[in-house]
């Protein structure tokens, strides 16, 4: 048995490197993850490479179970649907079904009798729209309930798939409406910041809302935006550069 070390941006990539360089199948080697690696900030700063240790097994024994604890069911689903190299749309197909199931189950238990879920996938993001909640109960004050639902569904989906897939939960087009309100607010505040030559501060916003503000003002050369605060909710400073 020989041992080699490999690197890659992700553990997945490191394993792929190992496979191609040693010219063996994944099942024929034992993989030990030395360092899981991290993408860093925007994949630029502070990224670390994933390191793995690979030992080849000469005679092919009965397939060694990998240390990873993906339930067999999902491995089977994944391997059936796609080639091992590239995660094709088949994985996402399963992910959509799983995500939809989870949200449906939660809605059923709340109980929301008349709500139905429409799920779709775009650029690796699963968007699920809840139709039929006329009361806004699922949205909550400032989208609080919707965000909570989204967070829980994300958590469960990612746990089940052992893979990070972004899931967006929407109801009655709330996310779109919220974005419009935020962009309008951002523009209004930037005007005021320019006029008064003073920084303006928003109230506490979640990461997605802050992103909306930053993006709304990114093309304005006279305005700088910065997040301030600790924790998940931060304020956004809208600063006039002049």
């Amino acid at each position, binding site marked *: 048995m020989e041992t080699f070390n490999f690197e890659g941006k992700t553990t997945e990539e490191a394993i792929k490197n190992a496979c191609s360089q040693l010219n063996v199948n994944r099942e024929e080697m034992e993989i030990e993850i030395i360092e899981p690696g991290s993408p860093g900030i925007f994949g630029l700063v502070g990224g670390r490479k994933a390191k793995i240790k690979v030992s080849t097994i000469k005679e092919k024994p009965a397939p060694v179970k990998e240390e990873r604890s993906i339930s067999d069911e999902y491995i089977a689903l994944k391997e059936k649907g796609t080639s091992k190299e590239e995660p094709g749309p088949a994985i996402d197909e399963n992910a959509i079904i799983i995500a939809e199931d989870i949200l449906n189950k939660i809605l059923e*238990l709340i109980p929301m009798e008349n709500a139905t879920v429409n799920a779709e996938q775009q650029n690796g993001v699963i968007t699920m729209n809840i139709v039929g909640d006329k009361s806004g109960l699922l949205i909550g004050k400032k989208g*609080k309930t919707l965000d*909570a639902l989204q*967070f*829980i569904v994300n958590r469960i989906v990612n746990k089940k798939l052992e893979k990070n897939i972004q899931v967006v939960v929407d109801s009655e087009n709330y996310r779109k409406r919220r974005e419009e309100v935020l962009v309008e607010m951002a523009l209004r505040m930037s005007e005021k910041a320019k006029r008064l030559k003073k920084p303006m501060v928003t109230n506490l916003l979640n990461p997605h809302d802050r992103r909306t503000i930053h993006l709304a003002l990114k093309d304005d050369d006279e305005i700088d935006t910065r997040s301030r605060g600790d924790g998940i909710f931060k304020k956004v400073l809208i600063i006039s550069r002049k």
Partner: protein
Amino acid sequence: MKDLIAYIAKALVDKPDEVVITEIEGAQTSVIELKVAKEDLGKVIGKQGRTARAMRTVLSAASAKINKRSVLEIIE
């Protein structure tokens, strides 16, 4: 109410069999006690209590529907 938390909690933990939920019902308010395996405690609480907070938010929305209040207690 109990089933809702049971479903969410069981889906989040590694040991779903060790999830125990008791509901103490009152006239207006009911208290839902959630007990999980020690290793799973962090999974139902989350970073900065984010998962616990999300569960409480969904729970209060569900309770508001039947004009009640519910409190979620995670028991160590």
